[in-house]
């Protein structure tokens, strides 16, 4: 009796198996889904391009990649320094660049002025807004604001033009030779995030 039950059970299983395999063939799997992950990292990088080594030197190797330092000495630079940057921001945030006198003493009777020109139109994207003129201090001040996702291009005539000027403390007279003083100016790119 038990063996008969087993036989009928196996026949039933066989029949069910047949029906199931038939339904699998009927359900043709003719699509394949693929999950993609697309990641855009946030980026903030700043650097200089300059051929004016006589009066300006820069060295970014000792600093963070989002910070560069420029040595300013012996009067006004002649206009061959350009600040380049690459930036990718999160939605709703922007990057900005600050400048500060990071080492060296400013002579008591004069100021160091920085002139930042508008972006020169190379590269692409939402480039920042330049402050124009700024009296540099040892506190960071924003010189380029509202930087979105953009790149300025790399090298001279790309990004924003920088020019320094030593002036008398009343900010009226340009001083050509500030007695060999050397100060470092550090530029930092940061996020509003």
């Amino acid at each position: 009796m038990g063996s008969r039950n087993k036989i009928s059970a196996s026949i039933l299983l066989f029949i069910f198996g047949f029906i199931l395999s038939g339904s699998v063939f009927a359900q043709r799997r003719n699509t394949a889904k693929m999950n993609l992950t697309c990641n855009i990292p946030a980026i903030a990088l700043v650097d200089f391009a300059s051929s004016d080594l006589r009066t300006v030197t820069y060295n970014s190797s000792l600093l963070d990649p989002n910070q560069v330092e420029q040595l300013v000495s012996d009067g006004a630079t002649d206009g061959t320094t350009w600040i380049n940057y690459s930036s990718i921001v999160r939605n709703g945030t922007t990057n900005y660049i600050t400048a500060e006198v990071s080492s060296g003493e400013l002579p008591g009777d004069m100021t160091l002025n920085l002139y930042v020109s508008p972006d020169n139109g190379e590269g692409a994207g939402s480039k920042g807004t330049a402050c124009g003129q700024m009296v540099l201090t040892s506190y960071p001040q924003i010189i380029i604001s509202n930087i979105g996702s953009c790149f300025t291009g790399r090298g001279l005539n790309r990004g924003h033009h920088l020019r320094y000027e030593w002036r008398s403390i009343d900010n009226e007279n340009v001083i050509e030779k500030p007695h060999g003083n050397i100060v470092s100016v550090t530029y930092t790119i940061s996020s509003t995030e």
Partner: protein
Amino acid sequence: MKKGFLILFYSLLNSVFLISPARSQVSTAGDNISLSVASLALIETNATSISMSFQPVSVAGAVLSSVSNSNLFIKISSLVPAGTARKVTVKLLSGTIPAGTQLTIQPTASTTTNSGGTLGTVASSPVVITSVDQNLITGIGSCYTGTGSSDGYRMTFNWGIVNPSATYGQLFATTSNPVIVFTVTAPE
């Protein structure tokens, strides 16, 4: 148990002969044998996900470079009625490709190690993935690509910025998870 099977078998055999009225009247007999080959289309991939990330630029002022990924193989089995062919199409099923960027896919001809049949023709230039089905492979007849993880049509994704001067400002740091779907179409 064996007895039970034998009894079942003989009774089935007997019933077949008993209900056959032509058994004793003709010396030859013919049966119509129907051999049926079902139309068949199966598609599978060697991976369930693909991850791509723009590499952060290392030089200030530089633009993001596009990234590519060639890890994906698509495997199919296909049987078609005479005179017809299938296609493999691709489209964006859900999610979004990040604004300012473009995702393309370029198929290469099927590997030959374990494949056979009419494997069709792959698109000659990269296909931009949109929410509308577009042809990747056409003219697929009856064929098989093999089932190994590197059998089939290799797909190269390329993800980049479409037109930097117009769209770079639309980029945002983000991670998105779009889903695309490959379809092997009905024969036509």
